[in-house]
Structures are given as structure tokens and as C-alpha cells.
């Protein structure tokens, strides 16, 4: 389907960005600079910035203090958690997740990256592509972020040298051939001095491209969403017996992919029962079509037993159904993965339990080579696992749809979130629902 997708006239589009790089690559400074130069730092924030500048012992205003919010990180001079910043231009509204570069906080990076349309990776021009940069680019690829902007920062410290920039670009591009990222753009900047951030730099005439702000305003994201495979996850069922809404029974939820229309034939999974969409209900009245990421209620023609965790899809595009999964997981807990261990699992709107049956391999994020045998995954390690779930899950491959292909694992005792999982190709071909259910 080639729907020309633009936000409705007179409105602006939302772009979710996440920034990553090594410690001291200047992420917070870049965001601070974007806010500062586009006049978005307000007076009281500036005043608070002046008040706190003696903490770092530096005489000048530290732009990173705008985003480094928590006291501990101001004292240590590093960003230790995901911080969200908001700014808008006449064309776009930006949600920026500023994420840490420290190895031990990669779990926060996954948090910041999971919903992003665009990853901004910073590379220190003096150091080139290091282990952390490779790791972050790999995670961005693993999480299927469609666009990547590589900012080669601190160009002022390498005399704005085109040769340095070209070498880093070549190194990164070579590494990126092994990644799954559709769109990569490179730009030389100095966040501290504002070169190529909001305004084009006169000190790098050899760079013909646009500055960062204009690049992120212009990236085309409308075709990133999956509009092909219609998916609706039922969160809860809304019932009432008022006169005006006799026996109202709406399946409330969010469209996780594709487009649904009134009158469409649908199948409810995992039961496999079929029906038609009688009405797409919203508080503002019924609508003819609903598409991702709208939150609506779907009313079906037939009085089926539908509940939380069920997934509604078109009969011609049935997702996979099964209890055996293979998935890439990023481990996020100090407590390592236990082979044979049981975990609580949340996938779409379904809560289940699972057992870890095997760890197929661990990924060496420097070489991208699989390492096996592997007996465990520790904090921030990534590997391919085989899981068996207590109930059948209705899913797609993660690379096809983030929202029907992603899951989290939780510790059943501490309740901590211990892992993020991305479902790979199904283990065996999924039997489609029995023919008698087909429409």
C-alpha cells in the first residue's frame, strides 16, 4: 500500500529521536545547543543553569546541565538515565530521549531507543568509531530504528579536517554493512561551538549538506510505519447497559499496525473465530477507518468471547500463533539470565509466563559474531534464546512490527523488568487457523 502519509493540514508531525554515543562525545551538549540556538531555553532555566554552574567548577555555562537533571549525575558529570526533552519547530514536534553512553546503562538506551523513529549517534572526531559507538549502532539496528544520523562531533579539535571526517565515515559505513539500517546520514559538527547544528558552519565549506536541525526536520518518516498488516490488540472490553448504548460491548485497544475499516472481515486470535467490524467507536463518534497508532473500540457483528490479550487481524493476513519462540533478548538485570528459569512475560496486551529453554548464542557486539556455546546472559548482553510460553502468543517477527514482535520479561519475585525481547522467524511454520473459521 502506498498511502501518501502526511499529518492533517495545519498540524505538525511528531518525531521521536534518541541520541547515543560514548561518554563525553557531547550528546547532552548537542541537545543543549539545539535548544539554546533555537531559542528554546527559557530565562528561569538559564538562571538555574548559572546557579548550578559552580558544581562542575567550570566558569562558563555548561550546556549539558540543561539535560543532565539528577543531582548525582551533575556531580559525576555524566548522564545516568534516559532524559526526555521536547522542542518544536513550525514543521515538527520533537521528543528527544537522551541516553547514556556508559556500558552499564545500555538498558536505559534500549528504553530510549524502543519507540524512536531516528537514532542520532555521536562520534568524537578525535577518537573515531570505538567500541561504544559500534555497540550503540548495533542496538539501534537490533531495535529496527529506521533512520540513523551519525554526528562526527568536536570537529573544532581536529581543525575541521575533511580527511578526518571522511575516514570516520568510511569506518562507520564499513561496520554498518553488517547492520540492518535502511538510511544512514553523516554530518560533521561542533556541538560546543554550534557548527552545523542549527546554522551551517562557515568553517567546513567542504560539507555541502544541511545542518542537524534541518536534517531532522526533513527526514521522511511516513513510510516507516507498517500499514500493510492490520493488527489490533484488545486491552479491555467496555460494556454498558444504558438506554442510549444498549448492550454496548466494545473491544478497546490500539491499532498496532495497518488499517481497519467498518465492515471488514476479521479473525479474533488465538481462538480463530471470525466476524465483521460493525462499528469503530470513538468518544467523538464512529469512524470509517482506523489506523496505527489510533486508540479506538471495535464492535463486532457477532457476540464472540473476546478479551484482553486477544488480537484482531484480517483473515488474509493472519499473524503467527504459538508457544515456542526464538527471540533476540537484551538482558537488563544485574541478576543474569537463568537457563531453565521461569519469567513473567508481557507481549502486546497479554501477560503470560515462560521458561527459557535454550540460549542459542550470545552476540559479540564488537565483531557482531555469534558466540556459542553460551551459558548465560549478563547485564547488557544480547543473545538469541528459545522460549516456551504457558499460553499461545499471537505474534509477528519484530522486524515486521515492533508492537506485535516485541516483549518484555519480568522477574516473578522482584517484579523487575529483566529483558527486552525481539521475536525472530518462527521456529516452525505456523498452522493457519482451521479452514472452517476462514471467511
Amino acid at each position, binding site marked *: 500500500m502506498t498511502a501518501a502519509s502526511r499529518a492533517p493540514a495545519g498540524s505538525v508531525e511528531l518525531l521521536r529521536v534518541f541520541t547515543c554515543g560514548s561518554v563525553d562525545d557531547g550528546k547532552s551538549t548537542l541537545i543543549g545547543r539545539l535548544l539554546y540556538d533555537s531559542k528554546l531555553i*527559557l530565562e*528561569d532555566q538559564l538562571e538555574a543553569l548559572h546557579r548550578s554552574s559552580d558544581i562542575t567548577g567550570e566558569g562558563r555555562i555548561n550546556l549539558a546541565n540543561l539535560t543532565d537533571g539528577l543531582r548525582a549525575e551533575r556531580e559525576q558529570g555524566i548522564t545516568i538515565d534516559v532524559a526526555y526533552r521536547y522542542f518544536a519547530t513550525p514543521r515538527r514536534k520533537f521528543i528527544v530521549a537522551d541516553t547514556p553512553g556508559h556500558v552499564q546503562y545500555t538498558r*536505559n538506551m534500549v528504553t530510549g531507543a524502543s519507540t524512536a523513529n531516528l537514532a542520532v549517534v555521536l562520534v568524537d572526531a578525535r577518537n573515531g568509531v570505538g567500541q561504544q559507538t559500534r555497540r550503540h549502532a548495533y542496538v539501534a539496528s537490533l531495535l529496527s530504528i529506521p533512520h540513523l544520523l551519525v554526528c562526527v562531533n568536536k570537529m573544532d579539535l581536529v581543525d575541521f579536517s575533511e580527511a578526518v571526517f571522511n575516514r570516520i565515515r568510511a569506518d562507520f559505513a564499513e561496520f554498518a554493512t553488517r547492520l540492518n539500517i535502511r538510511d544512514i546520514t553523516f554530518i560533521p559538527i561542533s556541538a560546543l561551538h554550534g557548527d552545523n547544528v542549527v546554522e551551517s558552519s562557515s568553517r567546513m565549506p567542504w560539507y555541502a549538506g544541511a545542518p542537524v536541525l534541518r536534517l531532522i526536520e526533513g527526514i521522511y518518516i511516513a513510510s516507516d510505519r507498517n500499514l500493510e498488516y492490520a493488527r489490533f490488540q484488545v486491552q479491555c472490553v467496555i460494556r454498558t447497559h444504558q438506554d442510549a448504548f444498549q448492550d454496548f460491548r466494545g473491544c*478497546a485497544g490500539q491499532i498496532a499496525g495497518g488499517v481497519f475499516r467498518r465492515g471488514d472481515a476479521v479473525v479474533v486470535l488465538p481462538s480463530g473465530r471470525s466476524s465483521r467490524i460493525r462499528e469503530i467507536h470513538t468518544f467523538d463518534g464512529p469512524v470509517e477507518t482506523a489506523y496505527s497508532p489510533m486508540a479506538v473500540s471495535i464492535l463486532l457483528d457477532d457476540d464472540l468471547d473476546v478479551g484482553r490479550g486477544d488480537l484482531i487481524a484480517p483473515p488474509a493476513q493472519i499473524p503467527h500463533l504459538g508457544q515456542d519462540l526464538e527471540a533476540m533478548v537484551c538482558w537488563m538485570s544485574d541478576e543474569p539470565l537463568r537457563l531453565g528459569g521461569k519469567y513473567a512475560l508481557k507481549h502486546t496486551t497479554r501477560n503470560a509466563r515462560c521458561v527459557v529453554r535454550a540460549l542459542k548464542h550470545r552476540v559479540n557486539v564488537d565483531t557482531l559474531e555469534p558466540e556459542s556455546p553460551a551459558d548465560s546472559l549478563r547485564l547488557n548482553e544480547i543473545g538469541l534464546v528459545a522460549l516456551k510460553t504457558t499460553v499461545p502468543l499471537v505474534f509477528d517477527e519484530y522486524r515486521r512490527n515492533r508492537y506485535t514482535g516485541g516483549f518484555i520479561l*519480568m522477574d516473578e519475585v522482584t517484579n523487575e523488568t529483566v529483558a527486552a525481547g525481539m521475536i525472530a522467524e518462527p521456529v516452525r511454520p505456523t498452522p493457519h487457523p482451521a479452514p472452517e473459521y476462514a471467511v
Partner: protein
Amino acid sequence: METYALSHIQALEAEAIHILREVAAEFERPVLLFSGGKDSICLLRLAEKAFRPAAFPFPLLNIDTGHNFPELTGFRDRRAAQLGERLIVRTVEEAIRKGIARETPGETSRNRLQTPTLLAAIEEFKFDCAIGGARRDEEKSRAKERIFSFRDAFGQWDPKNQRPEIWNLYNGRIHPGEHMRVFPLSNWTESDVWQYIARENLDIPSIYFTHRREVVRRDGQWLPVSPLLRLKPGEEARWLNVRVRTIGDISCTGCVESEVATVEGILHEIAAARVTERGSRADDRRSETSMEDRKREGYF
């Protein structure tokens, strides 16, 4: 032509509705914090969008400082009655009488005393989730808080040990006695809130618009003259046309000089403003980390 694309306000609305429905599905005794302020007014509209034609799956709760703008209290009660939803009010006054909240000599504002009062109400009703209207753009420590923000049995927030939050999969698991704070407006800005109020044509308390009020200049702000605010030597009260940008305890809510009488006017005004809305709250200005300290203790 069908575009299959949402504006940023529609995308934020869809995200908030999804969050509210996750709360309804995953918690046994949730509650929605409703003060009558602009953010919680948006929350109520979003709850209508998430659950109508059915009733809300949670009551409304207000922690009343007793230091209110009278316009706000009237609005709060009227709005709850219009919606036909149950409103629970617990007062700081009562909490002080019971010894749950203790006043600090010399501190007039009761914003800090809302914390023990709220925690006592959560315990009284065994609420396992409190939905609040806080936004990440308000203040630096809020910028780091999760949408589902875990609180231990003492109601404390541990900023260094937050659960990772991935995609739209919120982890609502808690042990008895613990609870979750949930912030559906996390990704909204002040401007988004006003755009939403305009778009939805929502009624708001009159003090958000220009009105004549007796105020006094203190610490760079215009504070309302009330029985709770005594003039210091050398201070002079004046009558000005003002409005409030954010509403808290009347003794520390700064007013801005304004002639604005419409929501559209407010949108223009904040677009041109040079001070963030929290900058008009005296309690946030005491120290660089004051909000972080209050949040650790369980403030909303």
C-alpha cells in the same frame, strides 16, 4: 484523500488513552488525581475518550491543601458532578490534626504537606495505582521519570533504580503495599495541554484568564494577597490584571500580568514567554534539586 497519518496532538492523545486502558486492565484499585488544574482537566477528557460510554474504572481523588483559590475548588466539584464520577477529597488540614502531616515552623506553603496526606489516602483506600497529570517538560527530574513510575511501600521514588520502559509494554507488577504512579501526559508540553484544551473546547477555572487581583512583588514574582500572605515591612500590595499559569497552594502561586481572556490568547502568550511555568512556583525555586527531593519522598 485518506492520509493515514495523525497530527502530533492526535498521536499524544492515542498514547495517553492506551496508558489509561492499561491501568484499568492491570490494577485492581486505581485512582485518578484530579485537582481542577489544567493538566488534570485534560486527564478527565482522556478518561472519557478511553472508557465512555461506560463509567470510569476509578474514582477521582483530590488532596486539598486548604490553601486554595476558591475558583478552583468550585470548578473541581462541578466537573466531577457533571461527569457523574465519584470524587474523594482528603485534606491537609485533617492530616495535620491526625498527626500524619507536620507543619514546619515558618513554612506557609502546604505543597510539601500534600505528600503525607496523599500517601495516607493511598493507604486508607488501598489504592494500587495513582494516575497523575505530571509532564516531563515541567522540570528536570520529571524529565527522567518513567510513565509507569514505581513507588515502594514508603511511597518513595528511586530515580537510580527505575524499571526500563520499552515500546508500549508497561510493567505494572507490584507487591502488596507498593503502588504505581502513572503519568499519561508524560510526553505532553505546556503548549500541547493548551492546544488540547482549545481543540476539545474544555472548560477551565476562570483564574487561568485575566482578572483583577491584589498582588505583592516578592522574589521576582507577583504573589496573591490572601489571609495566608502577610505583607512584610516595605512591601506594598497592588491591584493588577493578572492570570495564573499553574495552580498550587495560593500562598506560593505566582501570577503573571496578562490581559489574556481566551485559550487562543494563552497559546500566543506562552509561545512568547521567557519563563517556564514552574518558574512561577516559589516552592520549586528554593534549590536546584528541590523537586527531585520532594519526589523522592513521594510528592506527585
